Structure formats: structure tokens, C-alpha cells
């Protein structure tokens, strides 16, 4: 079932210089999609269009069968949550607690329910010890975890992560990625659109959409993409370490094509001795 349907979408910040050009794209319910491509290829613009922060110059966007327009905007914003790269730009509350509760207040959730929900989601992102702290006293990674709790607490259909982990340390990043995995297990209908430069992160998704100068040039599974070496070098993409390792080991004349873990590759190298 389609969850996002984009048809002939174009967007230009400056007239006649479109950043998104005639883009058509479908994303299914429950799908985990990574949007990759170099800076300025239109990924973040697309994310902003999806939540109605920008109005398309041309074309249409449908979210859960609702066309994104002024009339449906409020309805759609309930379904889509976005987490941006820089947590400082999205902190609203005076304390962590207030911040997580903010959207619930807007949705008129009863206080009792709100209190338990705030507790629950703070715990999910590992911030339950910080509920009464002010954002100024939190580190970047901690702020971002709060931002993710803010997004998830509304129980959205679609979660957009716009480089949400790029400012976190490795442990914090892994936390968030595990959290995303957990959310998907708990709610298989949650659609995730992740904008990322981290190819190892994209490796975990169901599908990678490669964007270049405002168009989607490729849409395939991660393993299909990593086999296309011409595309990888043409668009300056990184390879996940294991793929790079396998390519280099092939040069030694060892066949590791079907080995998918370090263990298996290691075994093959041992036989060499």
C-alpha cells in the first residue's frame, strides 16, 4: 500500500533554478527508505516539501491518500514527523519534559495521559534522567534524542530523519539506529524516510533512492546499489566497509562473493595459509 506518492514534483527557491525537477516517487507503508546523494541534490528540500514547509512549484504529493494542500495540511502534519539535523533548531520547551510534551499539548491530550506518555518516550530514547533539565545543559546528542522523542510521541505514520544522527557520537548514533529498529518492530506500519550521508546507515534500509540535481537517478536495494560500481564512482558515494573489503580481497584471487560476514571472509583467508 502506498504511503507517499509524489508525481511530477518540481520546486525552485529562485525562479528558473529548480532544485527538484519533475520528480516522481512512491514509498510504501512500512518501508524504510534512505535518500542519498551529495549536498545540494535536493534531499532536504524534498523532506521540507513532504511536511508542507515548502509549497511545490509544480506537481503533487499525496500522503496516505490525502493530497498535500492547504486544506489537508493539518491532517497531514499529524501523520508526518520530521527530525532535523541540528537539534538546537527544534527545541521549544524550557525543560526536556516540556519539550516532549509540547505536541501533546497542541493535540489536547489529557494531562494524566500526557505525563505517562512523556515518561514512556523519554525512557525510549534514554533521557528519563533528564526530564527536568533545561536544553542548554544538554549535549548535542542528548538534545537530538529529545527531538526524536518529540517526533515519535505523536505516533506518526511517517518519520523523516533529515541527517538526524550526523551530529551524534558513535554510541549515541547506534542508540538512535537501534531505537529506529525497535520502533519498526513495535510498529511495522511506520514508514521511515532517512536522509543520510552515512552509507553504513543506508545499508540497513529496505531501499536506497539516489538523488542527483533534483531527480531520483536510481531506486534499488542496498546490495543492488553496491554492485553498480560505475554508479558508485560517478556519484562519489562511499561503500560500506565490508563491500570495499570484499572487492579488495578479490584482488588477492580469493572468492569471497558469497561471504557476508567478517567471520566467513576470515575463514576463507585462513585457508590461504
Amino acid at each position, binding site marked *: 500500500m502506498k504511503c507517499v506518492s509524489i508525481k511530477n514534483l518540481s520546486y525552485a527557491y529562485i525562479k528558473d533554478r529548480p532544485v527538484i525537477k519533475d520528480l516522481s516517487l512512491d514509498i510504501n507503508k512500512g518501508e524504510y527508505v534512505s535518500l542519498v546523494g551529495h549536498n545540494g541534490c535536493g534531499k532536504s528540500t524534498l523532506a521540507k516539501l513532504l511536511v508542507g514547509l515548502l509549497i511545490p512549484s509544480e506537481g503533487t504529493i499525496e500522503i496516505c491518500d490525502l493530497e498535500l494542500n492547504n486544506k489537508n495540511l493539518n491532517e497531514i502534519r499529524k501523520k508526518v514527523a520530521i527530525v532535523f539535523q541540528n537539534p538546537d533548531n527544534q527545541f521549544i520547551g524550557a525543560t526536556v519534559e516540556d519539550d516532549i510534551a509540547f505536541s501533546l499539548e497542541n493535540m489536547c491530550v489529557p494531562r494524566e495521559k500526557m505525563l505517562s506518555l512523556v515518561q514512556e518516550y523519554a525512557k525510549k530514547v534514554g533521557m528519563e534522567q533528564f526530564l527536568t533539565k533545561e536544553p542548554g545543559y544538554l549535549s548535542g546528542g542528548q538534545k537530538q534524542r529529545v527531538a526524536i522523542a518529540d517526533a515519535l510521541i505523536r505516533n506518526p505514520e511517517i518519520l523523516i530523519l533529515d541527517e538526524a544522527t550526523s*551530529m551524534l557520537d*558513535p554510541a549515541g*548514533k547506534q542508540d538512535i539506529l537501534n531505537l529506529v529498529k525497535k520502533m519498526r518492530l513495535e510498529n511495522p506500519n511506520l514508514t521511515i524516510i532517512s536522509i543520510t550521508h552515512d552509507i553504513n546507515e543506508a545499508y540497513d534500509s529496505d531501499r536506497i533512492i539516489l538523488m542527483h540535481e533534483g531527480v531520483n537517478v536510481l531506486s534499488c536495494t542496498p546490495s543492488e546499489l553496491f554492485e553498480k560500481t560505475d554508479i558508485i564512482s560517478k556519484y*562519489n558515494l562511499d561503500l560500506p*566497509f565490508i563491500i570495499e573489503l570484499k572487492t579488495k580481497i578479490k584482488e*588477492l584471487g580469493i572468492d569471497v562473493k558469497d561471504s557476508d560476514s567478517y*567471520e566467513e*571472509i576470515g575463514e576463507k583467508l585462513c585457508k590461504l595459509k
Partner: protein
Amino acid sequence: MQIKISNLSYTYLAKTPNEVEALHNVSLDIPEGKITSIIGHTGSGKSTLIQTLNGLLLPTSGEVRVGEFVVTNKKKKNKRIKELRKSLAIVFQFPEYQLFEETVEKDVAFGLKNYGYKEVEAIKLAHKALEEVGIDKSFYKRSPFELSGGEKRRVAIAGIIALNPDILVLDEPTAGLDPKGSKIILNLINKFNKEGKTIILVTHDMNIVLNYSDFVIVMNDGKVAFEGTPSDLFSGDISTYSIDVPELFKFVKLLESKGIKLDISKIRSIDDLISQLKEKR
């Protein structure tokens, strides 16, 4: 200029209910002319540490010596701090957010003018700095806000480089850039180092630590947990610091556990590993 940190402690909001000790009795030497990475998980004290280096934060106790400059909590001793900030300059995380001028060249010249350079000379030095970071002449008169993320960051770095500091500190210089943009910045850092500048990098990217740094300092809980070379760090047990082992070292360790003998201190990349494996055949 060598950096010598002795018994440095720093407490945020000291003597209030919210006080947090971010650095606890840190003593460190950071060598001249090398690339040193400072790593550690979020909240370990990395950013506090670099801000004490040029007196943006004054130590609660202890001192920092940078060449002949001293930073302590005694205000009288810190008179030359403006001079120090010209010798030890910090490029903060996402420096492009600090761009504000009408044109690229004016933005780069801003710091110079604060240091007393006349307009003409400031612009001349700004052009030189922009050339160093590889920003094309056609951009000089354009608004910095029209540039791409990677270009903006290079303009921001030019603003710092224009002051010609001896020591350049960069906090997460590649965060948020695409692979190509990251590579350009890292090559630039390498170039500055080759020209004689001491580089200090704060990073979460273990591949930067492995591929670009001579030394690495691990911060944990406001204390120095490790000091040494990257290969020493990654070949040892780092599980307690909550930092990532680079994928390469995960694989190298696995090979070792299988009885394949390797010279770990010489492995910095897949190619190094492959060439050692080749010799075995």
C-alpha cells in the same frame, strides 16, 4: 608552539545547584606540528577542553600553557589572551552558521579587521585565505548564503586561516558534509599540517582518527583515558570508552584471533592490510 595542560579542571555553573564538573584534573602535552585527535563520547569534556585552550573558558583550577601564553583563572595573568586567540584559533562545529556578511570576501576579512588590519590589507589577506581553501575568485563578491554546505564551511575556515594561526583547532570539521565535501576538508587540513601548523581535531569519526592523525587523546568522564597513537588505541581494549572500533580493526582483530599474524602498527587502511596478506602468500 607546544601545548602543555597541567591539572586542569573546569566546572560549569560552579557553586549553583546545577554545577557540572566537565574536566577533572587533566594533564596533557599536545605536540607541535602534528595532527592530534581528541575523541570521546558526547559529554566527555572534549568541547570544554578545546575552549580552555585559548581562554574562551577560564580554568576553574590548573593552567594551560600555549608556547609562552598562559591561561589560568587569575585574570591578571591572562592579559595577552587576544594575541593567544590569533595563534590558537578554533573552528567550531558547523562554522558556516556563523557566516553573516554580505559577500564572501567581507566575511573572511571580518576577523582580520578586528585584529586591526586596514580594509585593503584585510581584503588582500582574505583573498589569499580563500585561495588556500580552494574557493574560486568568482565567488568573492557573492553572498556566502548562496554557496553549498561544503563551500560555506570552506569560507568559514578561510576566515580563521586568514589570521595565520600556528595552531588550528577544528571541532567536527566534516560533520554533515557528503563524502566528497569531507574529503576536500580533510585534504585541506592535511595541507595546513604539512605547511607547519599544529592541528587538533575533535571528532567522532574513527576513520579520521585512523587515517589522518599522528596522536589521539581519548576523553572519558572529564578525564584523559588514553594518550598515544591510533594503532595503539585500536589494537588495545577500548570497550570502556564507548567509542567505536573502526571496521578495519574489527576485521584485523578477527584475523588475528584466527592465527593470522599481522603487523598492526603498520595498518592504516584496507590497502595496508591487503599488502601484508599478499606477503604471506
